[in-house]
């Protein structure tokens, strides 16, 4: 099966980011294909390089990153959601004259159209509501 997942929740706040991660890990383990991970709303914080979770808690952004790397997944962060939350890549840092990029390696910033495009190529879309 080809999946597109939409991740709407921040890693520190909602069970929903954790559910999405566990679903994605299980889907890959069962040899499915993930066409695209789409990080929307507070979900963009899963792509933050700066988050430091408490030591006794799961590091959700790091887990996403290793899943993405291992399976060469396409991980897109919604540009409009990310900009207002301060998740920026290098071109945006220059454009808005901000001190430094906050996007984690393995993630790309792009438009919501990338979700529609992925949905068309997928058998199933799963929206992890927050």
């Amino acid at each position: 099966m080809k999946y597109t997942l939409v991740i709407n929740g921040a890693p520190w706040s909602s069970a929903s980011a954790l559910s999405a991660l566990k679903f994605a890990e299980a889907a890959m383990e069962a040899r499915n294909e993930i066409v695209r991970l789409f990080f929307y709303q507070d979900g963009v914080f899963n792509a933050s390089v700066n988050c430091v979770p408490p030591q006794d808690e799961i590091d959700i952004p790091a887990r996403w990153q290793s899943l993405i790397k291992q399976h060469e997944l396409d991980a897109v962060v919604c540009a409009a959601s990310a900009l207002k939350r301060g998740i920026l890549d290098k071109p945006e840092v220059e454009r808005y004259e901000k001190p430094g990029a906050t996007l984690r390696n393995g993630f790309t910033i792009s438009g919501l159209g990338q979700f529609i495009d992925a949905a068309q190529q997928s058998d199933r879309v799963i929206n992890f509501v927050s």
Partner: protein
Amino acid sequence: MNLHTLNKTGQAMQACLAAITEMDALVLLEDGVYALGEDIGTILPESVKCFAIRDDILSRGVRNTCDSRVASINWKDFVSLSAEYDKVISWG
């Protein structure tokens, strides 16, 4: 034949219950597992299969889980279910 998911109770549960049809199935996850305490098994049409994520039942300390109406599943089972139904609708 659709697979519904529910991650909280309250209005989201009402919306889900109003939209579910007899051929559909339901997965309770996150705070949706609290619906077990609200006897969702008796509210749902009998033909609707009902599942709940085991990790979420355990973490929330929810009782009433021996209810034979509701099967506790892991994430891999959820992935399989998502393939068996036509689409997944997440209420929250």
